[in-house]
């Protein structure tokens, strides 16, 4: 077990073009579960593959347990990886698949058997040990891939979207199992996903990437409550945070014919930056709704997503129908398409971002 350090590590496919991963700089503590998340093309998989030794590190360094990994082949890095499509060896049985990393490290046959049996028992694979991967279901294959990773007791686990080929229900179940397994084994784990829910629920800390650049590296709560920029704010949370570019008035921000109150610190941050407009971020649950006619931001409902426990109302501002808005309301509130509603917020933890740079104010 070991800590992992990306030290300004870059992956450059074509010199001169935008690097696939640009000077990634972060430290993962020993035993920590870290998730790399971002939209496709953000470099999260590339960053993982650099750690795995499957991509070159063109600049900077990556250290595992203090040892520089530049130029070290995968096989000498003492890592284990779960691939998106599992990458099981089709000609080997489940048992042979799981024993393979042990065999390659020259363990005796009895040791191999013992470790494979233990891992198989943990993952409920005992009865499948003699089967070939093609005779397994998707979920079982996923477990074999996990099993092949854990038998080794490596320094670091790497997981590249390991749940993306499972159906929705199984994904939720397996998500919890992986998190629990990692807790128990205490092995440093880097997990790549494009799904922000997976990232938030599994990671001790989450690294959000975009176009090869690290946006923010923090705990899920921190990411949610204090997103560092408008991109992170919009990416984390479902439905996404409402982002409006609004003019600043004396006591708040003008939105939809009403004024959204801002705290004195927020106002001074705006004036310090010398801004007359600002990007205002309000999460769907930071709104309170009341009927038409009361004082506040008025909106018209266009879509109602009734979930039972609560409902998401999608709408447009009455003053500017091109501006969409999302609100979390109580479940079974009876809101209908076409309803006019009035929105207010009393939350002092609204988010403000620079309208050009997107940085948090």
């Amino acid at each position: 077990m070991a800590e992992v350090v990306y030290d300004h590590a870059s992956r450059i496919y074509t010199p001169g073009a935008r690097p696939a991963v640009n000077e990634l700089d972060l430290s993962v503590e020993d035993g920590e579960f870290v998730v790399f998340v971002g939209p496709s093309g953000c470099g999260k998989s590339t960053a993982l593959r650099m750690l795995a030794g499957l991509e070159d590190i063109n600049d900077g360094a990556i250290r595992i347990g203090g040892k520089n990994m530049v130029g070290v082949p995968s096989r000498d890095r003492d890592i284990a990886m779960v691939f998106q499509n599992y990458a099981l060896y089709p000609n080997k049985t489940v048992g042979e698949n799981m024993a393979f990393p042990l065999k390659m490290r020259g363990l005796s046959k009895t040791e191999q058997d013992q470790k494979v049996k233990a891992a198989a028992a943990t993952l409920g694979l005992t009865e499948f040990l003699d089967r070939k991967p093609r005779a397994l279901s998707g979920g079982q294959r996923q477990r074999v891939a996990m099993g092949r990773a854990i038998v080794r007791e490596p320094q670091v686990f790497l997981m590249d979207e390991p749940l993306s080929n499972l159906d929705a229900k199984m994904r939720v179940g397996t998500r919890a199992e992986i998190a629990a397994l990692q807790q128990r084994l205490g092995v440093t784990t880097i997990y790549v996903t494009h799904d922000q829910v997976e990232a938030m629920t599994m990671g001790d800390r989450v690294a959000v990437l975009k176009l090869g650049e690290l946006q923010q590296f923090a705990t899920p709560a921190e990411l949610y409550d204090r997103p560092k920029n408008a991109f992170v704010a919009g990416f984390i949370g479902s439905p996404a945070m409402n982002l409006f570019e609004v003019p600043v008035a004396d006591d708040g921000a003008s939105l939809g014919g009403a004024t959204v109150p801002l705290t004195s610190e927020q106002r001074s941050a705006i004036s310090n930056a010398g801004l007359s407009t600002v990007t205002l971020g309000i999460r769907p649950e930071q709104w309170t709704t009341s009927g038409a006619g009361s004082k506040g931001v008025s909106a018209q409902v266009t879509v109602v997503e009734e979930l039972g426990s609560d409902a998401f109302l999608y709408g447009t501002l009455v003053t500017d129908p091109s501006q969409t808005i999302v609100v979390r309301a109580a479940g079974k509130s009876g809101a209908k398409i076409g309803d006019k509603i009035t929105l207010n917020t009393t939350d002092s933890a609204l988010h403000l971002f620079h309208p050009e740079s997107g940085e948090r104010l």
Partner: protein
Amino acid sequence: MSTSTTTPPAASAPATSHTASAPSKRSTGNVIMAIVSWVVGIVFFFPVFWMVLTAFKQENDAYTNPPKLFFTPTLEQFKEVLASGAGPALLNSLFATVVSTLLVLLLAVPAAFAVSLRPVEKTKDVLFFFISTKMLPIVAAIVPIYVVVNELHAVDNIWTLVVLYTAMNLPIAVWMMRSFFLEVPGALLEAASIDGASVWRTMREVVLPVVSPGIAATALICVIFAWNEFFIAVNLTAAQAGTVPVFLVSFITSEGLYFAKLCAAATLAALPVVICGWIAQNKLVQGLSFGAVK
């Protein structure tokens, strides 16, 4: 198609990314391997190169020890080959090849359709039958074929070759076309059917445009086999319908001592298929393995 390499860049990863630790060591290895590959390629190709080179020599340049690499090129050998009967042989080969290939496509495309997209019952048996005819050695059937052809007074008739070449290539074409048809997404056919297209219209307007590269590859493979065929041709033709390989054999009997002339004749005989093969190289394996390997 043509000469482009089809490996995605990632396919080379196992070779490069796991090898040497230091980048410099890795690139030295790569340079050496590249040089070795080129040398091997050139060695394999050299006899062909030498054949073409010799075809442009005067006879006295062809007979030297050590062999001559530099000389004054001449087209004389080609002229002489064409003057001694290569012309009709080339025409015969062209006719037998093109007509039999067209017939093959005419028969194979509907048949392949009937064993893939709109399958008959017992598709597997039908496929088995077609392939098993390919496994039967022609030598086991040549005697009665000769007797029958002789009875019909069709010996030394180019149409005899057309018919036999069609039968020879048909099974390969059915299997190959089937593998192309199976690549057509089922949803495409269902969409056409929901849009109200008849089977015939679906075939013509939806399926054929999608598989046309496959048809072209199949045709090229048939051309290669028909052009190169020798056994049937030598047994069933003589002066009238002799094809290029037959001509070549008679030529070596009469002109056996003239290397340059022989090389010119061999170059003329081989050139058309070499070009077809270069164009079809990515589909060669698919054709020869009955579509089992792409």
